[in-house]
């Protein structure tokens, strides 16, 4: 029996190994002389018990592409985090073993070392913690437990010697995660035109991108969550916001109420169970904190290399950056849990085009060619297909009260650009 299973496993591996992306040049550790690389911060986010060494990185890189970490040998980390696709998979939501489709979009590994928390809902603190979870996730890599993954890897003599050499002990789950995390920490991306622009080369970004940068910090209000500075160099505040993406789904409010009821009943575990068995995954950060204000909230993602890491949002529901900006421009999709920072923006077509140009300027040099092609593809799509576009809502000429009941749901008055504090008088 055991022998049959073993043979079956071997068979699966041979058949499916081809689906795991190849380790191309883009998989290599990134150069340390990138224009904007924050060296001190990088050192600060590297744990003391897992220093980044070339040996360990090489081991982690090998493991990253190894299907043996999955139950049937068909899925490696690289399956969903393909270096050729900006360490994502280009699919709306991740696909795991047995072609099972997950609920969330595979986020990029690039610059993930700087995240305060990992996963869309922040349920893991470090890359080490994160690395273990997809391995044992039923619909991702499907191992019954981490020990099974360790046993699978330990069958390979080269791994045995490598682990012994690097960690000074036999293979174990924690070291497995450490090796993967060490490799991931080499995937830094700070060599974009924007980084050179900040470095003083005014012509590194074209005029459209420069106008987009102004809009980004001004009328677009993008920087209120996607701010960039020395301590947060990845265009993310590392917080969780309900920006009205979950509310695309018809039953979101109903699901949210159900989740809150489970909490109110005093049985927080019931929510965890429901999250696995139902589409409550749409409740996002709430599943971690069990707090009402986190319903439908997901982590602000990095904008570096955003052009090559689509489709967008936690559910991969938007195909182009134009769709993303249309979503924000109309003030998201109203729902009772919408973040207070999400307001209609009233951006013009020109401003949206400029913002896309700016976002495109956040593409690393190594992805420049892929990015150019992708930008052309998205632009072409955007000229004919704009599913999220709602000019009337964006300009405040139409009420958007879908989430609200009652007569005022459709009678939201237009917003004035006048500062309300000047109306009261002194």
């Amino acid at each position: 029996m055991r022998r049959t299973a073993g043979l079956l496993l071997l068979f699966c591996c041979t058949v499916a190994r081809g689906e795991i992306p190849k380790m191309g040049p883009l998989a290599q550790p990134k150069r340390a002389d990138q224009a904007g690389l924050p060296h001190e911060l990088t050192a600060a986010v590297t744990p003391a018990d897992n220093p980044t060494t070339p040996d360990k990185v090489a081991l982690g890189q090998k493991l990253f592409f190894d299907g043996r970490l999955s139950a049937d040998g068909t899925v490696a980390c690289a399956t969903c985090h393909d270096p050729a696709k900006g360490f994502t998979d280009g699919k709306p939501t991740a696909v795991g073993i047995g072609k099972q489709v997950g609920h969330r979009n595979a986020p990029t590994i690039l610059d993930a070392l700087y995240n305060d928390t990992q996963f869309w809902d922040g349920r893991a603190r470090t890359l080490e913690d994160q690395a273990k979870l997809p391995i044992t996730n039923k619909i991702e890599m499907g191992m019954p437990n981490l020990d099974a993954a360790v046993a699978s890897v330990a069958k390979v003599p080269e791994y045995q010697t490598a682990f012994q050499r690097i960690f000074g002990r036999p293979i174990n789950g924690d070291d497995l995660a450490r090796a993967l995390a060490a490799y991931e920490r080499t995937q830094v991306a700070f060599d974009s035109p924007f980084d050179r622009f900040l470095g003083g080369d005014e012509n590194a970004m074209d005029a459209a991108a420069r106008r987009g940068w102004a809009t980004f910090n001004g009328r677009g209000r993008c920087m209120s969550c996607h701010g960039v500075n020395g301590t947060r160099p990845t265009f993310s505040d590392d917080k969780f916001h309900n920006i009205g993406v979950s509310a695309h789904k018809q039953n979101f409010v109903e699901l949210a109420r159900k989740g809150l009821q489970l909490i109110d009943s005093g049985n927080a575990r019931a929510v965890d169970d429901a999250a696995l068995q139902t589409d409550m995954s749409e409740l996002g950060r709430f599943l971690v904190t069990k707090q009402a204000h986190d319903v439908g909230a997901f982590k602000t993602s990095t904008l570096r290399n955003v052009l090559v890491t689509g489709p967008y949002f936690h559910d991969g529901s938007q195909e182009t950056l134009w769709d993303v900006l249309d979503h924000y421009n109309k003030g998201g999709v109203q729902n009772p849990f919408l973040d207070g920072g999400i307001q209609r923006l009233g951006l013009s077509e020109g401003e949206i085009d400029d913002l896309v140009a700016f976002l495109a300027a956040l593409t690393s040099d190594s992805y420049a060619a892929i990015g150019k092609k992708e930008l052309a593809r998205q632009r072409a799509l955007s000229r004919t297909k704009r599913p999220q576009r709602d000019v009337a809502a964006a300009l405040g000429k139409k009420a958007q009260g879908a989430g609200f009941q009652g007569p005022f749901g459709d009678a939201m008055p237009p917003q004035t650009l006048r500062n309300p504090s000047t109306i009261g008088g002194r």
Partner: protein
Amino acid sequence: MAPKHKSVETRFMEARDEALRALRGLDRRSFLKVAAASAGAVLARGLLPPHAFQLVNVAYADPAQPGWSFAYISDTHLYEKKLNERFVRAVLKAVDDVNALSPQPDFVLFGGDLAQLGKPEELAMGRDILKEVKAPVKMMVGEHDWFLDLGEHWKSMFGPVNYSFDHKGVHVVVLMSVVERDFWTARKMTPLERMQTVAGLDNGTQSRFEVGEEGRAWLKGDLAKVAHTTPLLVFSHSPLYKYYRDWNFWTEDADEVQAILKPYAHVTVVHGHTHQLLSNRIGNIHFHGMLSTAWPWPYAPTGLPPLTVMMNRADPFDQFDGTGDGRVVMHADGVADKIYNLWDRNPVTVRASFLASNGARDKPMATKLVTY
């Protein structure tokens, strides 16, 4: 020696550490007891914020049985529709919140300042929005509703400004506390100028808020037939104590009003106007501020009651940060727990036992925004 000033963040971390220490100190048996009691005591959302480390807050293991609850929406400051949609959006959110409460509150108190400048169309819009509330709504007047026409429209829509009723053994009083002495006639102000002067928080031209002689006489008369053992619940727009004079976070005749309330065993005052987490206790009287749906005020430079658990600075980019609505759970023994339902933060429960013990027991978790 500990430093004199501790930031909100420091105090939050201290509270958390204390809770975690308590967790380590519990043996298995008492942990199970605490956990089971806590889970069982969760009657409604917000009553027990479900932090893992709050399960061990031992006071929660033995809560007085809640008798009933009411919710509030306060300080909506509605402008004419064509001027501002943000505050409309906020009150709609609050209405949605209270309608989603399960079990439903016995009533919903509106805490005053429905309108921004007391205009009929502002008041009418507020009235129409509040019609969507499923539970009965009890109205209270604020200075923003009043000083355009000295309450003419408000009273025609919502009735008298001082009134009382009995509810499940509690005597509930709604008291107008934003009377101001005439500062306008001598200055020949138009009604709108008068309103705009009052609407300026720190406009020193105006007088201080007071219940006034007439209001105090009404209160005395109303309470004349109420036994001193009956729990009192008093709603006022301004705090019925002296917090900060320059902003009218203040009632000029607070001492006289407190004297009227003094003979009663349990008095809970719930007030609007201050738009912030605010708790105080003076003798037998517990005071709770209400959140605004429109915006949070900063804390005043002086006079903050020491029992207040402050919230830290609101995120200026987030319309809903520092704002919200809330609930009050009235216990059978006449004391009240106040729940602040902050929209973009964790809820905060200020228990009666916290105020009664002068802060020694049941210290609420400080509200904290994730660090910038």
